[in-house]
């Protein structure tokens, strides 16, 4: 038996994707023209699957701050903060995040994945219990596996199921730590956080919220779902990423937890990896400043999300449960998603394919995400392609439902 035979099922799926000439899992963006356009396979292509929520990757000030920091501090930090020292930018970014969230502590990680890996694996000790939403991101499940706590999975977005499982653990010693997300990356739905917070209080548990897709998207100040739901005081740790709304790379955790700083010498995914590079840190700081100073970006983003959702719904596509900047079309099987994706790409529209087991309930998804940088006309253009190709592939009825074109448009 060959070493990689254990991946035979996955390899078959990958081969199937490969056979589609362009493989959704190995697309190359030859040139990126703006937050919403790139050259792919030699064609100018509209980007509708980048998670670039606020469109800040090409903001002149973000670029200027980033370039200035590279000039001043060099390209890389060449080591970890514990072994090789922190840079001024790391500390300023942490102060800025703590101030933004109104919390005492902030800690910056090299990626969002590592922020989850680090916090979740460290705060849950050997006799503690992690309770993870069934649809939580891989980084949360990996963090749980890296740590020594016992892991229980509860039904997606079900405070009742969570409560039931906490009841079963009521007489078992150890702390109980709940993990949910602000906006779920696959279907764009949000957690019923007020209800989860009530369950958390009832059972004396701790609560971690991953705001990876909701930072800069939800809440009047853009702090995410905890702010929007009015339960920030109940959330013990907020984890997030710089790689989506802030257009950089890196992750963070903010908290008011007593003794938080000990995590810097206890958390292996923080200690044993190089710290984020100066240019990236400076760009992220400026992007965070803009997230706070320009609430109009949030409004534009959410308008575009609603426009896309209403448009696709009007066309008759089956979608996730609620509008958000993440809008996913549910398709009957993986091959349908890959073929649809491919035809859209050939027509000049880039989206994402998401397949089981990365998706909830074994769904095959064609996932889109909008940006504040998209114009209403770009979303209309995308909807036109969805309509044309969706009809040609029989995913939606031939005739549009009455009134769809005006659904969410100004």
């Amino acid at each position, binding site marked *: 038996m060959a070493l990689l035979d254990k991946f035979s*099922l996955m390899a078959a799926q990958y081969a199937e994707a490969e056979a589609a000439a362009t493989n959704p899992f190995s697309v190359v963006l030859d040139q990126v023209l703006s937050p919403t356009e790139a050259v792919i396979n030699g064609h100018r292509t509209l980007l509708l699957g980048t998670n670039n929520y606020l469109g800040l990757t090409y903001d002149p000030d973000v670029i200027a701050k980033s370039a200035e920091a590279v000039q001043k501090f060099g390209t890389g930090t060449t080591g970890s903060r514990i072994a090789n020292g922190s840079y001024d930018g790391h500390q300023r970014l942490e102060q800025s995040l703590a101030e933004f969230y109104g919390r005492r502590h902030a800690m910056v990680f090299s990626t969002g994945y590592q922020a989850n890996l680090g916090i979740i694996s460290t705060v849950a000790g050997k006799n503690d219990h992690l309770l993870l939403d*069934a649809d939580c991101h891989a980084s949360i499940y990996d963090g*749980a*596996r890296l740590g020594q706590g*016992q*892991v*229980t*999975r509860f*039904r997606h977005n079900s405070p009742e199921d969570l409560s039931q*499982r906490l009841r*079963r*653990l009521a007489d078992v010693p150890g702390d109980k730590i709940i993990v949910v997300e602000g906006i779920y990356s696959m279907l764009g739905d949000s957690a019923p956080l007020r209800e989860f917070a009530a369950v958390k209080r009832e059972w004396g548990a701790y609560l971690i919220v991953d705001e990876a897709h909701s930072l800069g998207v939800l809440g009047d100040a853009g702090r995410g779902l905890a702010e929007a739901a009015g339960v920030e005081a109940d959330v013990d740790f907020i984890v997030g990423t710089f790689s989506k709304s802030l257009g950089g790379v890196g992750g963070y955790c903010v908290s008011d937890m007593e003794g938080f700083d000990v995590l810097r010498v206890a958390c292996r995914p923080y200690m044993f990896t190089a710290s984020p590079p100066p240019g990236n840190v400076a760009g992220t700081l400026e992007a965070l400043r803009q997230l706070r100073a320009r609430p109009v970006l949030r409004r534009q983003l959410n308008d575009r999300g609603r426009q896309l959702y209403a448009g696709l719904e009007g066309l008759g596509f089956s979608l996730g449960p609620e509008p958000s900047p993440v809008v996913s079309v549910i398709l009957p099987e993986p091959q349908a998603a890959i073929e649809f994706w491919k035809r859209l790409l050939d027509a000049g529209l880039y989206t994402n394919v998401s397949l*089981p*087991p990365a*998706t*909830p*309930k*074994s769904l095959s998804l064609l996932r889109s995400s909008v940006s504040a940088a998209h114009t209403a006309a770009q979303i209309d253009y995308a909807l036109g392609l969805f309509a044309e190709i969706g009809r040609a592939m029989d995913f939606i009825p031939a005739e549009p439902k009455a009134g769809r074109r005006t659904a969410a448009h100004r």
Partner: protein
Amino acid sequence: MDNSVGEIRDVIFETMRSLLRHPVELTDQTNIANDLGLDSVAVMDFVMEIEDKLNVSVPLDRIAEVQTLGDLVETLHNVLSNA
């Protein structure tokens, strides 16, 4: 409820039969991934159905060790006996 191995097996087999679209013969030796084609998330979803019926939570590291339906019967029996 009396959670004998036989009863646990009945619940597991019955739940799996209603999940599969076509009839398949199930035994303790049936391999959940290879014979039934469930991926890692589908296995966890399946176990969640069983958990509801038997009113129990199975820790994920225990689920990760399960390969056959017989393993699952044994795991649930152990978890329920220690509850």
